[in-house]
């Protein structure tokens, strides 16, 4: 069937009627003949004798001429209606084209790149569409983002295709298919076309295997090379106790089909720290550890190059980035009458600026990040995170916890091993002479203790975190153990949110939750390619999904106007993307993807073009026939 996209049928008929009437009117006019005086009378006989026969013929010619004129008007009026093949239930398909924009599509085995080739393939596909096919183009990486609406307008589709850019993210076939299935729900003749090198991960997610149902799956393979050595993991981590030193992991894999010799360089703050020559057999995976890296390197980068300056097919995975979690100097105030154990423990961390005052001198001037109250409770809640050691309230003091009594020989029986405070500690056999029995407020967490009461409590008071040890450490053997400084340092780390996630790099394609200074509501992220954008902050974390590997800069501004800047790294770090050998088949569940089928008719939808072309031809022909007196 045909539908009109331009003028409505009534309008078309009106145009046709009006112009047609004029045309017919013109033809009804008696054509005034030129009168020529001819001196030879005998001629008239012949002329008058022929008239009987020629009249019929000339009338027919006139009719033909009129019909031609009317046909021309009809063609143009019809073209104005912009008629399209409609409905065509038997032919029109709904197609979602998933263009793989994952990292492996940056491979240069086909020039200029796999992604460019993929776009060419999609252009071919658009050209081969049937008259009623409708298409949506989407960029597929870890997420799937449509770049066009579902349309039959090839111009829109071509423009959308141009906007697909490569990313440094692993692709997720499951996400792509789920999106396509959502779009294609209740659409006629649904089809999914995947244009990819085939390394897309499993078609399985939290809801199980993706069920295609009646949706046809097509696959267009892109790429042919397979020479690739890449970095699959790159990470740096401080040692748990000696935080001035760190260890670096670099994992490499040769995903190609030949042995490679490569050069691995490790750069700290842009300067080479280490260069190694390595041999990787085909398919081999090796991990290199750089231990006891010390110094103030903020950013680390690993690079690999093939021996002899050659390049593999995928340069995107030849670099990896990491950043040491920054060590913030914490200003610690000890309010104590002198506690050697406490002083000794705090000396272990060179990043602490420790000030000690007597309880009488509290509160002192100046700001502190952490206040440790040793056997003393202040009269008001401090405006800082606090550690309370034996918070027995004196007169007027408000401890964080309500004291209900005492416990003799309490035991470390229940220990929350997941709490950051107890990390790397062994507390189970610590002997304690006595402790305070306390009542916890809602939200407080008993980190360790026994059935009679907690020994270590963590919680929040007035928006600030606190940790309370309900016993006097001098009446226990805790200070003689490694666990004692660990608990204190863990608590300080927990307060300043250091090491909460030691992450030295984020993974591209995942949603990043980057901790930001308290009070910030919006943050600006500058991507490695200079792209700057504002990202939201929720619960103290900037939320962002980056698509590129490299170093990002995060700028925040708090309500008070203070600005902060931090740098973090992001890596592709995906094993599947490393293997760039194109897959010749794409299988989802029991379905193997078929090949792309071109539309039934090669002609695209715009019928008006045909009509106008016909009119054009008619006009030329009519010109000739008129002047040769075939028509009049």
């Amino acid at each position, binding site marked *: 069937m045909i539908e009109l996209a331009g003028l409505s049928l009534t309008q078309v008929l009106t*145009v046709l009627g009006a112009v047609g009437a004029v*045309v017919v009117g*013109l033809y009804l006019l008696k054509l005034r003949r030129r*009168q020529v005086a001819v001196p030879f009378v005998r001629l008239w006989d012949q002329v008058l004798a022929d008239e009987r026969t020629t009249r019929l013929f000339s009338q027919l010619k006139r009719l033909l001429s009129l019909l031609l004129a009317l046909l021309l008007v009809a063609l143009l009026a019809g073209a104005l209606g912009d008629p399209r093949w409609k409905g065509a239930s038997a032919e029109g398909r709904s197609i979602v084209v998933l263009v793989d924009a994952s990292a492996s599509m940056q491979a240069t085995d086909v020039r200029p790149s796999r992604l460019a080739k993929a776009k060419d393939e999609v252009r071919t596909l658009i050209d081969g569409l049937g008259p009623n096919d409708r298409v949506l183009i989407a960029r597929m990486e870890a997420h799937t983002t449509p770049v066009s609406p579902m349309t039959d307008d090839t111009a829109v589709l071509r423009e959308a295709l141009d906007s697909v850019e490569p990313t440094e993210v692993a692709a997720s076939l499951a996400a792509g298919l789920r999106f396509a299935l959502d779009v294609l729900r209740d659409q006629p003749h649904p089809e999914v076309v995947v244009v990819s090198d085939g390394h897309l991960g499993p078609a399985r997610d939290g809801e199980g295997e993706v069920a295609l149902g009646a949706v046809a799956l097509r696959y267009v393979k892109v790429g042919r090379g397979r020479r690739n050595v890449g970095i699959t993991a790159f990470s740096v981590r401080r040692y748990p*106790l000696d935080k001035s030193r760190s260890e670096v*992991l670099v994992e490499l894999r040769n995903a190609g089909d030949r042995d490679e010799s490569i050069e691995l360089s490790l750069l700290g703050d842009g300067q080479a720290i280490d260069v190694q020559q390595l041999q990787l057999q085909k398919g081999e995976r090796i991990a290199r550890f750089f231990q006891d890296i010390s110094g103030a390197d903020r950013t680390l980068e690993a690079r690999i190059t093939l021996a002899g300056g050659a390049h593999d097919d995928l340069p995107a995975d030849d670099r990896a980035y990491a950043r040491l979690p920054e060590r913030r100097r914490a200003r610690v105030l000890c309010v104590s009458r002198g506690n050697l154990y406490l002083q000794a423990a705090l000396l272990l961390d060179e990043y602490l600026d420790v000030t000690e005052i007597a309880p009488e001198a509290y509160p002192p001037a100046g700001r502190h990040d952490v206040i440790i109250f040793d056997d003393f409770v202040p009269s008001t809640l401090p405006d800082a995170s606090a550690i309370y050691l034996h918070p027995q309230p004196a007169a007027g003091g408000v401890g964080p916890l309500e004291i209900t009594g005492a416990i003799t020989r309490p035991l470390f029986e229940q220990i929350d*091993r997941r709490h950051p405070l107890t990390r790397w500690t062994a507390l189970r056999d610590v002997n304690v002479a006595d402790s305070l029995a306390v009542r916890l407020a809602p939200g407080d967490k008993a980190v360790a203790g026994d059935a009679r009461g907690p020994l270590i409590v963590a919680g929040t008071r007035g928006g600030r975190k606190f940790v309370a040890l309900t016993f006097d450490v001098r009446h226990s053997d805790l200070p003689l153990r490694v666990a004692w400084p660990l608990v204190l340092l863990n608590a300080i780390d927990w307060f300043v949110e250091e090491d909460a996630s030691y992450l030295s790099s984020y993974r591209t394609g995942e949603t990043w939750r980057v901790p930001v200074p308290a009070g910030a509501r919006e943050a600006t992220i500058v991507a490695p390619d200079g792209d700057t954008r*504002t990202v939201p902050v929720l619960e103290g974390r900037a939320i962002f999904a980056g698509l590129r590997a490299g170093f990002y800069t995060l700028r925040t501004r708090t309500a008070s106007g203070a600005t902060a800047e931090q740098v973090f790294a992001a890596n592709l770090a995906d094993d599947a993307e490393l293997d760039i050998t194109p897959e010749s088949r794409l299988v989802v569940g029991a379905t193997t993807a078929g090949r792309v089928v071109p539309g039934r008719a090669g002609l695209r939808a715009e019928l*008006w073009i045909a009509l106008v072309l016909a009119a054009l031809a008619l006009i030329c022909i009519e010109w000739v026939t008129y*002047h040769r007196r075939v028509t009049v």
Partner: protein
Amino acid sequence: MKRRIALEALFFGALSAGVAALVAWYVAVGPRELLRGEDRYTLVAPTILFALAVVPLLGWALRHSLADLPPLQRVLSLALRSLLITALALALARPARTSESSLVSTVFLVDVSESVTDESLGDARAIVQAAWQARGENDVRLVAFARHPRVVPIDDDIEAIPAISRHASAAGAVESAGAGTDLEAALQLAYGLFPPGHLRRAVLVSDGAQTEGDLLAEASRAKRFGVRVSYHAYKRGVPAEVAVRSVTLPDRIEVGSTFMVRTRLFATTPTKVRVRLRQDDAANALDPSRELELPRGETEVEMRSIVRVPGPVTYTVDLDVQGPDRFRANNRFATSAIVPGRPAVLLVESDPSRATYLARALVAGEYEVDVRGPRELPTNVRELERFDFVVLSDVPADAVSLGQMDALERYVRDLGGGFLMAGGEQGFGLGGWGGTRIEQLLPVRMDAERRRDQPSLALALVIDKSGSMTGIKMELAKDAAKATAEILSAEDYLEVVGFDSQPVRVVRMQSAANRLRILTDIGRLAPSGGTAIFPALDMAYQDLAVTRARIKHVILLTDGQTQESGLETLVQAMRAESITVSVVGLGSDVNRSLLQSMANLGGGRAYFTVDPHNVPRIFTRETSTVSRSSAVEEYFQPIVASPADFLRGIDVGSAPFLHGYVATQAKPSPAQVILRSELGEPLLARWRVGLGWSLAWTSDIKNRWAVEWLRWPGYQRFWSQLVREHMRQRRRQTLDMRASIEDGQVHVEVDAIGQDDRFMDGLESRVTLTGPLGARADRRTQRPTNDGGSAAQNGAAQDGGVAAPDESAREETHPLRQTAPGRYEARFPLDRYGAFVLEAVHTRDGRPIAESRAQVANPYPREYATIEPDETLLRRAAELTGGDREPTPARLFDPRGEKVRHNEPLWPPLLYAALGLFVLDLLLRRVRLFDRGFRPRRRAGS
């Protein structure tokens, strides 16, 4: 003539080629766009302009026209026709004007997940309806979303938006289609709906409780696409709802010890509920159910439980709500843990029938106990490896081979096993353990100082020095005699009689204080001659009879056959004078029956051995036994010498008396005396040996000295805790493993940090996920019950669904990848609900060196866990993208100065122009406009 035609053809051909060349130039290098003011004009398909090359040919046709038209009219006609063709060709070249539009396309994204009430859906419809009516030229689309978004088509000409319905679930689906909220997916779908040439607006109508995806991450992308995201938060109060938020078990559950199962409940209104706790498939025995009045908010319930069998255990909490409750799916929560197996204790006792007391106590303390005789003590350390603690109770040293001792020592030192020697008549010094490797292992020495009230001893060693003793036998016999001399105290007396055919006093009866001389004398023993026991024994008898001592004893060593008569009579006579006789038969051809009968009559013991190496030990043991130098048989109350963890909860002060112990001396620190006797001698001492513990309990553990303890209520607890504290720790190191579920993916993280503050790198690790365990919540159609209505959604399966046939727990194994120094991670999807346990094994070079355990619960779809709306999320997304909170239709369609470029096709006006030109062209043909005066002029002429 022909020449003229050819010239004409050449002229018009050239003209036509010129036009074509002009078009070709334009197509190749001509300007693509034409800017005029704000507008931009382009030709989409300029190649069609080649059709213009026809125009000159029209002129050629005109030159040969037969039509009767005035020349001027002809020229005009040609011009019009050329214009007409040009207009059509231009139309075909598809000129377009890129202009700006401020039309708005708004996509409403309406949350129809289960957490949304029907009333709220009505509100959503009203919001969409208002926008629909106010849309004017603007575009309005509708998407209903829950777990997945679906486009709701709206016909252009309808007046009222139809009611927004929830998503129907596919038949046999794991869970309802509404059991999830994915704002991200909904927004992504919206991008594909905006028609070109419209400003993009999305309006979220939701409670903001997302279970999948991340709206804020998507909001950044939306901003990039120029989509302003506004929102309407559902305002209706939260429905009456009671849910189990979590069920937590302690990190370490031990078989047989009680612990608390903590359940966090959540209620939106005060409600009465019954909490039922099940352990695997049975009700929790200690605390099966509770009736509770839940206040608004969160409540924590603790219920006591105990696990009796090691292995996986699953706790399921079920809520019976007496009152309205919107969802039932969240009234159940299952969580699992793996309870490590019982520790194994090897109890070696010389009289296994008397081992039952301790064995019973340990079994009650959740231990596996294996009671064996001394011969069955494993001789290699591999066999010992399966035990966590070994008790050697009242076993004499000569019943334990050197190989067995060696295995024991390595078990403690290298494998970290726990070892306890318990005393008794044959324990410690009494059992001849002095000087053995085991003594070195123990925290006590056995050469106890003599005490004043102990009897003095006169000992006669009667040693066979016949020719058959030549060689090693003689040497060892001498060693035995020397060792005996060494262990006797100064108040004891010793005589050594050597005999062949004749007896010889090698050492005269004298004080053992003359040690040096005695040893020298013994050294002079030399073998020769036959065997005649009677004279030798008689000599010893005579000498002892005249010696003053409270204990008189003879040890006879022989290796030969003897048929002497009268020996038994002699022994009886000696016995009558309180002289006891023990015999040692060395070799296989001794007269066993005779020697045995001598020992019986003599009130002593008979030892038979074929290995001369045993002789010294037999002698020392016999000496210790006879002298009873180290046995203290008196009632005493144990005293705590230093506190120890395992004594917690045990009041040793209230313990009954012990009836005796073996006197020993504590070794210097680090040996630690835990319990002591009133005399200050160790009762219980311990120290670390290598990786393990070694303990000495100098009293016994059976119904002799500890007879009162057996009835003491603390007996079982004392021994259970003692063993637990000192038994071998886990075979392998346990690495910290955390597991969480995000977006349907299990994320497992293992931190491998060694004892030395070092990362453990290069481990090969695999994690096995097992589950869902116990609770039969697997594979079911989880449909909520809406008390509020929505009958369409509540067909069958109201009761939480129909169980699918396959409910067995599944196991899947995934590799853990090292992602950082000392960190291993795995991610894999999980599509089942219930309680799961994860066990990881870490190997290096194929040898397992560490393991990890964790549990994770995926009790029900997250949609049922998030009840409170999260407007902050929606607000942040709106702030970021420049959207509004609850925009009015006017605000929504207000372009706010924004414009969007779009292509406007310009070909229809050209077609209109062509039609007009055509009509004019016809007019020129049909009406003689010029030359009208032809006839009058002609007439005038005529």
